[in-house]
C-alpha cells in the first residue's frame, strides 16, 4: 500500500491545519495533504476515496485549488453505495459549477440515480441537479424530474418541485410541461410540498405568461382559501414560529398572490379580504410577524387599486418607519420606494421622518433613505430638501460624502428653478465637498455661468468669497480661477451688482493674489495650475496695473518639471512680452459655451462625428421630431476613410476651451501629424476648436492667414518636429520663430478680410422633380467657415409636404444646419435653408457633402439622395 494514502484521518488533517501558526505553515500542511491525495488518485485507491474527497472539500473551503479532485467526485457518484454517493454529490456541488465541462459526464449517473429504488439516493440526485445543473442537463433530465413531481414520498416531491424551478430558469421553453403538475401541488397538505409548489408556480408565472393566465384563472381562489386556513389555523408546534403558524408559507402565498393580482381586477378583488385580514391581525412585535406584514404590504401595493387597503398598507409602513429596530426601518424605506410609484403623496407625508433617516448612523439605512429622498424631490420641494441635504453634507462622514454629493448635484441640476439658485447651491456643495465631485459637475457649472450673462458679476464675486474660505476644495478652486480669469474686471468693479449682494471691495492685486494662491497651493494638481496660467494671461490684459506681477508669476513656472506648465509659461510669456498689440484680442472673453452640445455630450448621445448639432436638428420645423439618427449615421460612411481632424468634434470643444485636456504626454509638439502647424497655435492659445459662433475671434484669423501661406507653414512643421524640450526650453531661439511668424501675419490678416473672393453658385442636386442650388458666402475674416444658402425648387406640379433636408459631412468638416423657411414646398416654387460649414482643414481638403431629401407627395414618402463633391475650390 502507498505510504501516503493510509495518511491521516480527516479530523487529524483539520486539527493539523488549525494548529498552524503562520500562513506558510498552513500552506505546507495543505501541500503535503494534496500530494498524498494526488498519489492516491493516481493509484486509483478505492478504500480512502471518500475520505480524500472530504479532505479536498475542506482544502477547497480554505481557498486552495482542488480541480484535480473533480474526477473523484464522478467516480464516487458512480459507485453503488449510499455513503459514497452522498459524499460524491456533496463534492460535486462544492468543487464544480455549471460551467465546467466535466459536469456533462455526470448526466448519465444522475439519470440512473433519479430512477433508483432508494428514495434517499433519488433525493441526493435531485439536490445536485437543482443546485448546479446546466441548460443541457436541464433539457436531458427534465422528463425524470417531471415524473418525480408525482412520486409517492412527499420529500421527493418537494425536491423535484425546486429542481423544476432551476430547470425552467435554465430553459424557459420547458415551462409549459410543468404547468399542470405544479397546479396539483398547490392542493397538497404537506407543508414542504405546498411551499415548494407555490414557489414553483411563482417562478413559472415569471417565465411564462401562459402559466400566469392558467394559475390566475384556476388557482387564485384556492390559494386565497389556503392562506385563510393558514391564518386561522390553531397552534401547530411543528411549524410554529413566534406564535405564527409557518410564516414562510404565509410569505410564499402572499408573493404568488401578488403576481396573480397584478394587473387583474378580478383576481385582486378575490384577495382583498384575506389581505385586509392578514394586515390587521398579524402581530407585529416579532420579526416573523413583521416579515409577513412587510410581504403583505408589498402585495397590496402591487395588486389593482383598492383605496382602503392602500391606506392600511401606508399606515403599516408609517409604523415601521417609527420603529426602533433598524431592520424594520430599513424595510420600510425599501417599501416606500416602491410605494412612490403608486401613491406619491402618501409617501410625501413621511418626508420629515425619511430625512431624519438620511442622518442615521447606519450606512445601509442612510443609503436607502437618500435614494428615497432622491425620488421624493420635485420642483415644489427642491429648495427645502436640498437645504437639508447640504446642511447634512457638512456633518456626514467621508465615505458617504461622495454618494451624497453626487445625488445633491444631480437634484440641483434637474430641478433648479432659476440659475442663481443653481449657482448658489453648487457653490455650497463645492465649498463643502469639492474634492468629491466628478469633473462633469464643475464643467456643467462653468457652462451655466457662461450662459447666464446677467450673473457673471455675481458668480465671480460669490466664487471669490467662497474661495477665500475653502481654498482646499480642488474643483471649487478651478471654477473660481476660471471665472476670475474671464470676469476679473467685473469682480473689481462690482459690475452687475444684484440687490441681495453685499458689496465687496476687491482690488486688482487682490484678484491676482487669489489666483496666485491657487497656483502655489501644494495640493493643486496639473489641471488647476494650467487653468491658473490661462487665467493669469487673461488678467494681464484686464488688469494692466498688475501685468508686471503676472509676468513674474508666469515666469516662475518656466522651470517647472511638468512639461505642460513649462510650455504654457514660456508661450504666455512671449505673448506678454512681444505681442502687446494682439494680446487683448487673444484673451478676449470666451464665447458662450453651448449648453445643448455640452449636455448632449454628457448624455453620450452626440457621436463626435455627427456634424449636425442636436440643438439645430431638434428645432427643425419640418415636423420630424427624431432627427433621423440612423440615416445620418449611414450617410456619414463617406467620412470613414478620413483621418479624424484633431479637434473638430463638437463634443470635446468645451474640454479644449477650458484648456483642461491635459495628459502629460499629449503636449502638442510630441504627437504632431503633418498638419500640426495649426494645432501648435491652437494649443498655444488654449482654444480648441472655435465654435461656429466665434466669427470675430482674431485668434482664428491668425490661424487662417497662416494656412494661406505655405512657406511659413513648412517651417512651422519643422519646428514642431523638434522634441518639445529642445524646442521650448533648451534652445532659446526656438520659440522665436513662432512669434516671428505671428508678427509676419499681421498684414496678411487685413488683406484677407478685405477681399474675400466670390464663389459661383452651384446646382448641387437635380432630379426630374427637384433642384437644389447652393449659394456661397464667407464671413469676413473667417475663411474656414462657409455660409451656404440652399434653395430647393419644386419642378413638379405637386405640393411637397413634410419637406426635410439632411446633410452629412466628413469629420474634418463641421456643419450647422438652420431650419428651413418652410416645410411645405408648393408646385414650381422655392424654399431656402441656410447652413454653416466649417472646414478645419481649410486649404488642404475641399468640401464634400452627402445629402438626403425626404418629403411627401399626397402622403407618399419620397426620398432623394445625392452626394455633392463639386464644390468650388478654396472653400
Amino acid at each position: 500500500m502507498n505510504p501516503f494514502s493510509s495518511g491521516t484521518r480527516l479530523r487529524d488533517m483539520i486539527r493539523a491545519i488549525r494548529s498552524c501558526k503562520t500562513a506558510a505553515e498552513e500552506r505546507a500542511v495543505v501541500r503535503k495533504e494534496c500530494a498524498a491525495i494526488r498519489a492516491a488518485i493516481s493509484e486509483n485507491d478505492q478504500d480512502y476515496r471518500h475520505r480524500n474527497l472530504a479532505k479536498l472539500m475542506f482544502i477547497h473551503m480554505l481557498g486552495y485549488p482542488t480541480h484535480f479532485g473533480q474526477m473523484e467526485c464522478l467516480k464516487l457518484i458512480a459507485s453503488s453505495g449510499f455513503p459514497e454517493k452522498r459524499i460524491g454529490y456533496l463534492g460535486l456541488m462544492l468543487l464544480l459549477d455549471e460551467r465546467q465541462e466535466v459536469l456533462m459526464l455526470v448526466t448519465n449517473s444522475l439519470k440512473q440515480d433519479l430512477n433508483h429504488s432508494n428514495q434517499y439516493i433519488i433525493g441526493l440526485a435531485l439536490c445536485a441537479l437543482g443546485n448546479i445543473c446546466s441548460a443541457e442537463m436541464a433539457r436531458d433530465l427534465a422528463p425524470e424530474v417531471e415524473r418525480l413531481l408525482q412520486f409517492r414520498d412527499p420529500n421527493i416531491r418537494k425536491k423535484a418541485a425546486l429542481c423544476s424551478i432551476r430547470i425552467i430558469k435554465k430553459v424557459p421553453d420547458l415551462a409549459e410541461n410543468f404547468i399542470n403538475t405544479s397546479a396539483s401541488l398547490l392542493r397538497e397538505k404537506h407543508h414542504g410540498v405546498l411551499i415548494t409548489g407555490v414557489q414553483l408556480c411563482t417562478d413559472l408565472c415569471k417565465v411564462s405568461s401562459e402559466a400566469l393566465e392558467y394559475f390566475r384563472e384556476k388557482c387564485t381562489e384556492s390559494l386565497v382559501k389556503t392562506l385563510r386556513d393558514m391564518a386561522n389555523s390553531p397552534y401547530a408546534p411543528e411549524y410554529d414560529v413566534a406564535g405564527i403558524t409557518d410564516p414562510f408559507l404565509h410569505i410564499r402565498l402572499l408573493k404568488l398572490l401578488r403576481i396573480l393580482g397584478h394587473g387583474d381586477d378580478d383576481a385582486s378583488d378575490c384577495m382583498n379580504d384575506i389581505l385586509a385580514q392578514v394586515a390587521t391581525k398579524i402581530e407585529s412585535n416579532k420579526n416573523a410577524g413583521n416579515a409577513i406584514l412587510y410581504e403583505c404590504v408589498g402585495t397590496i401595493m402591487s395588486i389593482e387599486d383598492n383605496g382602503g387597503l392602500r391606506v392600511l398598507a401606508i399606515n403599516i409602513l408609517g409604523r415601521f418607519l417609527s420603529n426602533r429596530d433598524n431592520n424594520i426601518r430599513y424595510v420600510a424605506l425599501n417599501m416606500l420606494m416602491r410605494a412612490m410609484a403608486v401613491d406619491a403623496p402618501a409617501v410625501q407625508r413621511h418626508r420629515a421622518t425619511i430625512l431624519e433617516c438620511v442622518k442615521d448612523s447606519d450606512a445601509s439605512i442612510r443609503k436607502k433613505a437618500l435614494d428615497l429622498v432622491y425620488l421624493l424631490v420635485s420642483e415644489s420641494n427642491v429648495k427645502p430638501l436640498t437645504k437639508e441635504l447640504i446642511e447634512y453634507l457638512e456633518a456626514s462622514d467621508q465615505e458617504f460624502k461622495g454618494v451624497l454629493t453626487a445625488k445633491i448635484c444631480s437634484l440641483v441640476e434637474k430641478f433648479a428653478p432659476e440659475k442663481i439658485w443653481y449657482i448658489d447651491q453648487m457653490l455650497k456643495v463645492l465649498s463643502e465637498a469639492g474634492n468629491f465631485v466628478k469633473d462633469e459637475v464643475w464643467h456643467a457649472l462653468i457652462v451655466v455661468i457662461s450662459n447666464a450673462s446677467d450673473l457673471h458679476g455675481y458668480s465671480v464675486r460669490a466664487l471669490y468669497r467662497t474661495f477665500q474660505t475653502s481654498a482646499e476644495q480642488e474643483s471649487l478652486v478651478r471654477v473660481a480661477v476660471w471665472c476670475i480669469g474671464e470676469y476679473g474686471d467685473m469682480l473689481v468693479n462690482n459690475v452687475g451688482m444684484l440687490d441681495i449682494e453685499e458689496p465687496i471691495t476687491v482690488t486688482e492685486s487682490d484678484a491676482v493674489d487669489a489666483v496666485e494662491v491657487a497656483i502655489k497651493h501644494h495640493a493643486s494638481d496639473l489641471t488647476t495650475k494650467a487653468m491658473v496660467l490661462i487665467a493669469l494671461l487673461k488678467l494681464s490684459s484686464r488688469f494692466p496695473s498688475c501685468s508686471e506681477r503676472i509676468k513674474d508669476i508666469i515666469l516662475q513656472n518656466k522651470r517647472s518639471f511638468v512639461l505642460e506648465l513649462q510650455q504654457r509659461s514660456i508661450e504666455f510669456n512671449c505673448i506678454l512680452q512681444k505681442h502687446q498689440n494682439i494680446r487683448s484680442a487673444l484673451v478676449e472673453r470666451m464665447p458662450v459655451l453651448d449648453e445643448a452640445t455640452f449636455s448632449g455630450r454628457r448624455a453620450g448621445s452626440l457621436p463626435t462625428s455627427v456634424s449636425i448639432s442636436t440643438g439645430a436638428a431638434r428645432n427643425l420645423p419640418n415636423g420630424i421630431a427624431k432627427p433621423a439618427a440612423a440615416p445620418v449615421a449611414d450617410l456619414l460612411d463617406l467620412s470613414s476613410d478620413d483621418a479624424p481632424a484633431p479637434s473638430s468634434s463638437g463634443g470635446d470643444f468645451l474640454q479644449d476651451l477650458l484648456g483642461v485636456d491635459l495628459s502629460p504626454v499629449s503636449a502638442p509638439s510630441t504627437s504632431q501629424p503633418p498638419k500640426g502647424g495649426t494645432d501648435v497655435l491652437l494649443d498655444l492659445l488654449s482654444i480648441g476648436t472655435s465654435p461656429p459662433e466665434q466669427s470675430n475671434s482674431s485668434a482664428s484669423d491668425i490661424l487662417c492667414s497662416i494656412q494661406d501661406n505655405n512657406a511659413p507653414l513648412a517651417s512651422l512643421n519643422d519646428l514642431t518636429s523638434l522634441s518639445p524640450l529642445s524646442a521650448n526650453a533648451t534652445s532659446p531661439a526656438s520659440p522665436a520663430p513662432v512669434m516671428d511668424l505671428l508678427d509676419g501675419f499681421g498684414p496678411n490678416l487685413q488683406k484677407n478680410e478685405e477681399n474675400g473672393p466670390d464663389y459661383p453658385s452651384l446646382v448641387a442636386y437635380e432630379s426630374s422633380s427637384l433642384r437644389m442650388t447652393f449659394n456661397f458666402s464667407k464671413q469676413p475674416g473667417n475663411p474656414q467657415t462657409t455660409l451656404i444658402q440652399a434653395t430647393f425648387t419644386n419642378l413638379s406640379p405637386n405640393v411637397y409636404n413634410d419637406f426635410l433636408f439632411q446633410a452629412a459631412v466628413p469629420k474634418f468638416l463641421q456643419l450647422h444646419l438652420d431650419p428651413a423657411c418652410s416645410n411645405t414646398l408648393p408646385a414650381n416654387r422655392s424654399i431656402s435653408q441656410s447652413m454653416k460649414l466649417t472646414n478645419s482643414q481649410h486649404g488642404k481638403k475641399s468640401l464634400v457633402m452627402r445629402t438626403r431629401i425626404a418629403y411627401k407627395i399626397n402622403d407618399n414618402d419620397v426620398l432623394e439622395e445625392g452626394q455633392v463633391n463639386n464644390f468650388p475650390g478654396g472653400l
Partner: protein
Amino acid sequence: MIHFVLLISRQGKVRLTKWYSPYSQKERTKVIRELGGVILSRGPKLCNFVDWRGFKVVYKRYASLYFCMCIDQDDNELEVLEIIHHFVEILDRYFGSVCELDLIFNFHKAYYILDELLLAGELQETSKKTVARLIAAQDSLVETAKEQQGSISNIIAQATK
C-alpha cells in the same frame, strides 16, 4: 432567490459556502473577501442588511459566526433572517448546542443539513422535525453501510488468516 450562503467567523475564516448561482473560483474568492470586509466591520446595533452590487446581503451573527445570505432586490429580507434562524435552530438541535468547532470538524454534516433546508436557492422545508428526521435516516443508512463493510472485511480478514 438566495444566490449564495456564507458562514464566516469573526476572524474572517470561511466555515461554509454554498453557491446557488454560478460564480467562478476567482469571483467566489473576491466575493468572500469583499463581503467579509463589509460585514465584519459593521457595528452590533446596525441593521442586518447590506446593499451589495445590486443585491442584498442579509447577515446575522450567532456567537462567533456570521451567517450571510445574498438575495435579490425584491426578496423579503425579514424572511431571510427567519430562514437563517431556522437553519441555526436545526444545527443546534442536530449537534446539541452547536458551536463553531462542530461546524469545522463536521463541516460536511452542516452541508447535508443545508441541502435538506435549501435547494436551488429556495426554501425546501419549514419543519425542523422533518429535516432532523431526514438527516437521521440518511446517517443511519451510512452507519449500516459501514457496519456491513466492516463485517465483510472482518470475514475476509479472518478467512485469509
